[in-house]
């Protein structure tokens, strides 16, 4: 496979996953904004959302005040924002277009028809009342892409590069959401307190589609340690960091097997996966959750660089 193709497959999957994650974060923030909170709480929701997606600076370069409608438009449809849902879906489509030979017709059609629809969506069409519907649509389109990928593509290098992109983006996203939220909500790792905190945590779990599954696993209500364990360490939780690392590891093993050749990426992925499965949540909390999450975010970058140099994306002209 061309190195450029691998690069584009990896990013096609990453951008599709990122679009989904941004939609999830907007969903959380707009739910939180509907729950009572003291003082400037609502506005702070939007600020922390902008921080989680790394778009705070870009937003304030364009607007001087935090306003819910503007933030929503900025995160969903603004073409000036390279991380907006529209920009992500458009980047995913550009990548897919560049690798038509490595994707299936089903995958291409799903990416292309998603793009066609969002390219024709105007800000005015996403009023508050239809916002939940629009966000659902984004999640569904992302799920459609995943379904087409899993159901139609050969289990060769194409598949493994896509999976690596999906899981790396998801792991990175989970770490970022937790970092922002945990930091803001529980600076001292305190026990979760009153009704507002509870609904905050419930909403965060909901954004990972994990509210009910959390309740199935943990029977004693919302505890900071449990929520952190669930979203970081539980391998059966599909958006947990542990699950994603296992996915990355599997993709790397798949590549090594397919190519009959091992690179630095295999060791890096295997090590990260093993370290995480050998850890318990109290160790992480004692050493500092923020530090741990920052390390995860740094690891995502390290891994992406390793992949690019091991499989020669870096030398693509």
């Amino acid at each position: 496979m061309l190195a450029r193709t691998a690069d584009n497959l990896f990013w096609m999957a990453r951008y599709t996953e990122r679009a989904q994650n941004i939609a999830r974060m907007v969903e959380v923030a707009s739910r939180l904004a509907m729950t009572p909170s003291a003082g400037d709480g609502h506005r702070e929701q939007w600020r922390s959302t902008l921080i989680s997606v790394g778009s705070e600076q870009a937003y304030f370069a364009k607007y001087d005040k935090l306003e819910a409608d503007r933030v929503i438009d900025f995160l969903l449809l603004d073409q000036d924002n390279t991380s907006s849902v529209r920009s992500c879906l458009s980047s995913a489509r550009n990548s897919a277009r560049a690798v038509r030979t490595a994707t299936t017709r089903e995958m291409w059609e799903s990416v292309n028809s998603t793009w066609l629809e969002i390219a024709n969506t105007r800000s005015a069409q996403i009023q508050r009342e239809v916002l939940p519907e629009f966000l659902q649509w984004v999640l569904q389109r992302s799920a459609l892409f995943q379904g087409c990928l899993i159901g139609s593509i050969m289990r060769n290098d194409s598949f493994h590069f896509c999976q690596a992109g999906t899981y790396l983006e998801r792991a990175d996203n989970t770490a970022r959401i937790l970092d922002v939220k945990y930091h803001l909500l529980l600076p001292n790792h305190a026990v979760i307190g009153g009704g507002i905190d509870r609904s905050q945590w419930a909403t965060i779990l909901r954004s990972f589609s994990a509210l009910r599954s959390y309740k199935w696993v943990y029977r004693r209500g919302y505890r900071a340690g449990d929520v952190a364990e669930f979203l970081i360490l539980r391998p059966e939780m599909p958006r947990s960091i542990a699950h994603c690392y296992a996915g990355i590891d599997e993709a790397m093993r798949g590549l090594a097997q397919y190519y009959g050749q091992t690179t630095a990426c295999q060791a890096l992925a295997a090590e990260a996966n093993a370290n995480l499965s050998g850890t318990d949540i109290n160790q992480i909390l004692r050493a500092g959750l923020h530090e741990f999450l920052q390390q995860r975010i740094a690891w995502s970058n390290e891994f992406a660089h390793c992949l690019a140099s091991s499989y020669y994306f870096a030398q693509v002209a």
Partner: protein
Amino acid sequence: MLAADDSVRPAYRQLDEWLKSKPDNFLRRKSRDAEVLFRRLGITFAVYGGKQTSERLIPFDVIPRIIAADEWRRLERGIRQRVSALNAFLYDVYHDQEIIRAGRVPAELITSNAAFLPEMIGHNPALNVYAHIVGTDMVRTGENEFYVLEDNARTPSGVSYMLENRETMMHLFPDLFAAHRVAPVDQYTDLLLETMIKVAPQGLDGDPNLAVLTPGVHNSAYFEHAFLADQMGVELVEGGDLQVKDGYLYMHTTQGDKRVDVVYRRIDDDYLDPLTFRPDSMLGVAGIFDVYRAGRVTIINAPGSGIADDKAIYSYMPDIIEFYTGEQPLLNNVPTYRCNDNQQLSYVLDNLNQLVVKEVHGSGGYGMLIGPAASSRELREFTSKLKQTPEAYIAQPTLALSACPALVKSGIAPRHVDLRPFVLVSDDIRITPGGLTRVAMREGSLVVNSSQGGGTKDTWVLED
């Protein structure tokens, strides 16, 4: 669709009855369905001009163009003859130039022609084939009467439309296919793959590595490049993916560099190799031409093939066919006035409002004058252009083009069409039945180019 006496030609009878049996809105609904399909598949064409380059659909007309079996057989013979003469001509002009020595084609027409590549002299391409992929543009003017307008021997495009138009039609009108015996076209990409393999350099260990070279996603025909690579199961590469090292051509893969043996390039000669041709080219590969000359890579079509489809050479095609095949041409050539000849130029200037004037090196319907439809200002403009640079133009009479029914705003109406069959050349000449029919969507218009708003339709060759 109609014969000279206005009766429906036999090949169209069933279609005509079928059309009459359908409710008013049926075709329009199907036409909208087709548009949705094309958009979803991303079968788009970039149109340049104005501030923005946009992705547009080529209008697709849902009414097929039908060619009877015996008419196609005649056409096929004519194309075969013409394409084999074309390759013989290319071999000759890059070797002994016997046709010049025989006085049949003037020497300066070749040696001073920008499409002639002196670098190709003496080179023997695999199987001595230069133009592996040819799209012969022609029009029908009457019963069994076809004129060739152009021999596209560089990088003819449009074959993906031929294939996707058929897929779409089979999806939209299964009953219509059940009622006709339509010759299939979907073997084209298999034959193209076979062609690429057959002309691979000699003496390789194992199967040749093949690639389609595209200028990139911004090229107007990018969809087609991706489509063909995908259908054949070969890599779609850009110049940046390729590199010449130690006398061979390589592509950058996830496992390091891998040899490439056959390149179907969709970029022009000028851009192929900045070391040999345009130094500012970002699209090509530095040094690829030397690898080619050393016989270590096959380039499809061969560099320098453009000399055969040059508009100035066109008028000599009847001589060329006769010279190399010893036969009379089976397909007509449109009488052509060469404006670099003073006598012919003055005839052209006197009869400008009856003629079509084309740039010798132009393509895509840009920069041409259609005399009968031109305003007096356009006629004045062309008069001064012709006086200034007569060698840049040729002129031809307008032909009485045949028309096909098309679905337009007012309903079903006749529109002018042309035909581009696609020809593959390796150890044999293979012609896919039918081809791409382009249709001028405006009433009375003769311009079918997609860059000028022309559309396409599916082309059916009926089997006996």
